[in-house]
């Protein structure tokens, strides 16, 4: 215990009191770390809340089933239920149906309606109605006895002011009906599914309401024996005669695995992005600890001369870093509280838009996440302090008498660091070619880190060269102060240069994200205009929210047959399928008509040569995401079970598609009808054969005609509106990204402020000497201004270079390995040209406090102190 107590006594005497003496510097660093840590924590907590909500909802709906009987892309015959129940392996079975419905009034949010048999479902799922709301002590009996009754979850009822006994008009994609509210569910079990936005009804009512007679979405099973994936396969073989073609027995744990893995990938990417803020904060810690080590060199020598071991000095400085990290983390707690409420909304919206529907109202403090944020913050602070602590440790006791060898060692280290940094930058290339590990682009992330560290370490050598190059030019352009500034930049040494690393990191992140988002947007825009083409999109009500899984209502299908000849329809049917744990869509569409008006954005394959083969149904097109997930290439065979049909077709080409639910496989609808069966269609897009002169009037007339022929129980959206909506959603999904980026830039600005302020304070005697030999105060200020400008410019140039490399990694490695998609590389020169001077301006503003520090006291007083 004594050595520890002694260490902390020395720490208080030596380090803590020094911090207290220069508390503003320490507080700025703590603030930077706090910002980084709060971003990291709040992002992780927000995504975790979404993941938790999704998993919980899936688990609540899955209940205690051991196995699930389902038909890929279709529904299970209801009459299978009694047959399955007779099997000796089955103890209980329950049929389940789900769909999103909407109450009357278009402003209402859709919610999940679950149809089940309240009696046979009791062994599977828990739910209970609130006392006195269901009219009887057995609300499950009520659901069965009274058709068109529902039990509403408590949050849903509260949100809309619905009570037991109320009548609601609920709309499905084919029809609408009046339901009576039988009662309100307790906030437990199924009552909490979908974030508490759920309603329960009897399965017979559900079928009556949806028109899906004789089928159910799935049959959940409880088995008599313990279950393993192998035993489920075995069971499938045993029931081969019992089960119709295509029916599958799967583990309930597979449900939602695709959604979970997509959210996890998003969480990882956002965590990495938010980690960048912490990484920038790392430079602040480095900067301050290195300053302490450099400015207290003589004290260190005295310590060493009086008997302090190198290890003790190392530990003292390392502890300084840890203290700054711990302080930053503590300050991050209230900041995270503020940030998380914003992040929660943004993150859950993005996840709902891009991946799976989630409802998150509250965030729970996860001990693991708190521990992780504490550990990561402390670790990066510790790592940031290692190099300065090592330098402090190497101070020789003899320096108590002399300081002669300092300058030479600095120049040596700049050269050595340049070698290491080039190796690190070079290492990014082979790293970027390594495959993902379990779907995580680990090598890609290491390559990014390698780039960041490499460019930061290149800064000392880069500044030496930059300073040496610009100094002579500056003399002619801006006189002596600018020349001196150039010389200072040349000789500024490792510590100042590494601090510029914070700016390099932030600017490179900015550049890379601007390029990536622009490339993404440009590609999506191209895709939207070519592939999501069409003048009017028509589908059954709520068809989109239910992923177009059901054929369009008959009235709509028949009505569209009699439409005016001026429009050409492209009908489509989508099947939600699964390969491994990955959800995708099989999109059967009228390829002939589509290719007359629209186009795919090709990644692999010859569009002209393949057009007729595609229309003839010789093969499928697969999306880039599907190709990357499955490893399928042009020429391979696509194999799938679609309802009762085993589909096997060659892959003719690979195209880009940014649909929200993973990959897509395209095939001609007519060819599918010929080879297998008529899949009917769920959505149609209409193209004017010739663009009308008054387009808006023609579109209005077309809408009116459709309503006249097909009724109003449908959704119509103009192509222009749909494309604009997709791009608007796209822009919204990157709001969180840009907020994180702004925070990283703010931390870099704090770094500039600290570095320059420290440089000014350190060199006050030098400035006073300049005054003594005839310099004007304004000349000294001008010199410091030029120093700031040169450091910031050098940081921006290096940041830009790093950013371009980083953008390549993000687009072609991280995105491909995380989400399966890449984009057409496109640089937004306008945005870069407009924003980079803005960053220089902001950084110069951050330098102002340092410039103001000069001669805040009269030089005479400072000289006297000296």
């Amino acid at each position, binding site marked *: 215990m*004594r*050595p520890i*107590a*002694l260490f902390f*006594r*020395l720490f208080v*005497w*030596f380090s803590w*009191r*020094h911090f207290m*003496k220069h508390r503003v510097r320490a507080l700025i660093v703590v603030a930077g770390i706090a910002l980084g840590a709060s971003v990291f924590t709040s992002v992780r907590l927000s995504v975790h809340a979404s993941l938790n909500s999704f998993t919980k909802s899936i688990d609540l709906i899955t209940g205690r089933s051991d196995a699930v009987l389902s038909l890929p892309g279709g529904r299970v015959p209801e009459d299978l239920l009694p047959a399955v129940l007779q099997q000796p392996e089955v103890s209980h079975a329950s049929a389940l149906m789900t769909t999103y419905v909407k109450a009357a009034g278009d402003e209402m949010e859709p919610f999940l309606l679950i149809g089940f048999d309240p009696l046979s479902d009791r062994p599977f799922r828990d739910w209970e109605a609130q006392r006195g709301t269901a009219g009887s002590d057995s609300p499950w009996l009520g659901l069965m006895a009274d058709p068109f009754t529902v039990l509403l979850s408590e949050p849903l009822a509260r949100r809309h002011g619905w009570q037991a006994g109320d009548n609601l008009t609920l709309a499905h994609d084919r029809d609408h009906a009046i339901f009576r509210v039988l009662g309100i569910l307790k906030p437990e079990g199924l009552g909490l599914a979908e974030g508490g936005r759920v309603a329960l009804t009897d399965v017979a009512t559900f079928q009556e309401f949806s028109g899906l007679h004789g089928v159910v979405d799935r049959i959940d099973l409880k088995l008599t024996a313990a279950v393993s994936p192998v035993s489920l396969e075995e069971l499938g073989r045993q029931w081969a005669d019992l089960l119709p073609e295509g029916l599958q027995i799967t583990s309930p744990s597979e449900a939602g695995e695709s959604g979970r893995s997509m959210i996890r990938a998003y969480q990882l990417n956002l965590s990495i992005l938010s980690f960048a803020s912490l990484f920038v904060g790392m430079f602040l810690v480095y900067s301050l600890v290195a300053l302490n080590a450099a400015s207290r060199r*003589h*004290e260190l020598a*005295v*310590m*060493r*001369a*009086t*008997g*302090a*071991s*190198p290890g*003790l000095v190392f530990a003292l400085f390392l502890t300084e870093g840890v203290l700054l990290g711990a302080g930053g983390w503590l300050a991050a707690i209230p900041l995270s509280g503020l940030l998380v409420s914003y992040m929660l909304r943004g993150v859950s919206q993005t996840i709902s838009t891009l991946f799976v529907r989630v409802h998150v109202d509250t965030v729970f403090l996860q001990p693991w996440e708190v521990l992780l944020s504490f550990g990561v913050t402390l670790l990066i602070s510790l790592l940031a302090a290692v190099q300065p602590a090592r330098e402090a440790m190497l101070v*020789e*006791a*003899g320096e*108590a*008498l*002399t300081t*002669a060898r300092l300058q030479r060692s600095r120049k040596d280290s700049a050269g050595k660091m340049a070698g290491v940094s080039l190796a690190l930058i070079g290492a990014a290339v082979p790293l970027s070619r390594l495959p993902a590990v379990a779907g995580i682009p680990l090598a890609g992330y290491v390559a990014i880190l390698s780039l960041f560290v490499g460019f930061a370490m290149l800064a000392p050598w880069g500044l030496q060269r930059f300073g040496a190059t610009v100094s002579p030019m500056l003399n002619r352009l801006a006189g002596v102060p600018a020349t001196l500034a150039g010389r200072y930049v040349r000789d500024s040494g490792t510590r100042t240069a590494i601090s510029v690393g914070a700016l390099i990191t932030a600017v490179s992140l900015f550049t890379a994200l601007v390029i990536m988002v622009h490339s993404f947007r440009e590609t999506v825009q191209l895709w939207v205009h070519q592939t999501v083409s069409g003048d009017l999109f028509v589908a059954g009500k709520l068809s989109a929210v239910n992923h177009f899984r059901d054929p369009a209502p008959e009235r709509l299908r028949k009505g569209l047959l009699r439409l005016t000849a001026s429009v050409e329809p492209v009908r489509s049917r989508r099947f939600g399928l699964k390969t491994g744990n990955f959800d995708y869509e099989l999109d059967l569409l009228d390829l002939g008509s589509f290719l007359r008006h629209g186009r795919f954005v090709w990644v692999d394959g010859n569009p002209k040569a393949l057009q007729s083969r595609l229309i003839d149904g010789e093969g499928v097109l697969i999306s880039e995401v599907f190709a990357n997930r499955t490893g399928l290439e042009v020429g391979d065979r696509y194999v799938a079970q679609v309802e009762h049909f085993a589909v096997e077709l060659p892959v003719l080409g690979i195209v880009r598609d940014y649909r929200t639910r993973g990959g897509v496989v395209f095939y001609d609808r007519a060819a599918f009808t010929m080879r297998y069966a008529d899949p009917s269609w769920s959505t149609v897009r209409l193209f004017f054969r010739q663009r009308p002169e008054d387009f808006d009037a023609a579109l209005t007339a077309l809408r009116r005609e459709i309503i006249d022929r097909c009724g109003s129980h449908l959704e119509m959206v103009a192509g222009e509106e749909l494309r604009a909506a997709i791009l608007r959603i796209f822009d919204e999904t990157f709001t969180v990204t840009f907020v994180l980026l702004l925070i990283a830039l703010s931390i870099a600005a704090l770094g500039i402020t600290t570095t320059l302020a420290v440089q000014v304070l350190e060199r006050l005697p030098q400035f006073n000497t300049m005054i003594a030999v005839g310099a004007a105060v304004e000349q000294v200020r001008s010199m410091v201004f030029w120093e700031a400008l040169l450091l910031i410019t050098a940081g921006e140039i290096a940041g830009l270079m790093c950013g371009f490399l980083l953008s390549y990694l993000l687009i072609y490695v991280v995105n491909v390995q995380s989400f399966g998609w890449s984009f057409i590389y496109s640089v937004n020169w306008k945005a870069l040209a407009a924003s980079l001077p803005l960053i220089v301006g902001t950084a110069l503003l951050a330098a102002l406090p340092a410039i103001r520090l000069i001669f805040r006291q009269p030089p005479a007083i400072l000289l006297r102190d000296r």
Partner: protein
Amino acid sequence: MTDGNFLIQAHQLTRIYPMGRTDVIGINRLDLEIAPGELVVIKGNSGSGKSTLLSLLAGLDRPTGGGLTVAGVDLAAATESLLTRYRRSVIGMVFQNFNLLPTLTVMENACLPALLAGTAYEQVAGKAVDLLRWLGLEHRKDHLPSQLSGGELQRTAIARALINQPQIILADEPTGNLDSRNGKAVVELLAGLNRDRQRTVIIATHSNLADPHATCMIHLKDGEIAGRA
């Protein structure tokens, strides 16, 4: 104690500083023997090698040639950790510019070497108070260095040098930053340590204040002994 009852033995001691393409000689083939209890005054002009010799004796620097043994420790071959232990227990160092740590109080500065040697603060505090009382600094023990006069700073440095009861006190220009009254007082203190507490004291100085107390005077010139009395 070393061979021949000498506390310090230097044989052909050399310290050369490489400075770019040329070498600067700090100490050149110096032979020296000092017995316990002596008060040695080393004199010489700037650049004569006084501070270099003191650095070598203090284990703050290593010879580039020859041998140096102090209190049985071969300083030319000692490891870094042995040198650290040596500085803690054998040597007490007094600097011209005091070299007190600015964030530590007088009391804390005085205690520092003992704490670094692993002694508990409670154990060393009483001894430090005694030393400060002896040096007339007891009323200043909670002050920071910035609140002290030059004489008080140097007396604090002496307290720090004595806290581990070292055999040898090395003083590098101890009066260089003091006025004549304080300078004389400091020299009296060092002489008293030698006379009353049998410490070996080595003072490198330009001034003549210590001359009357010296048992041995060494004159250095260009890193070599130019005269001895």
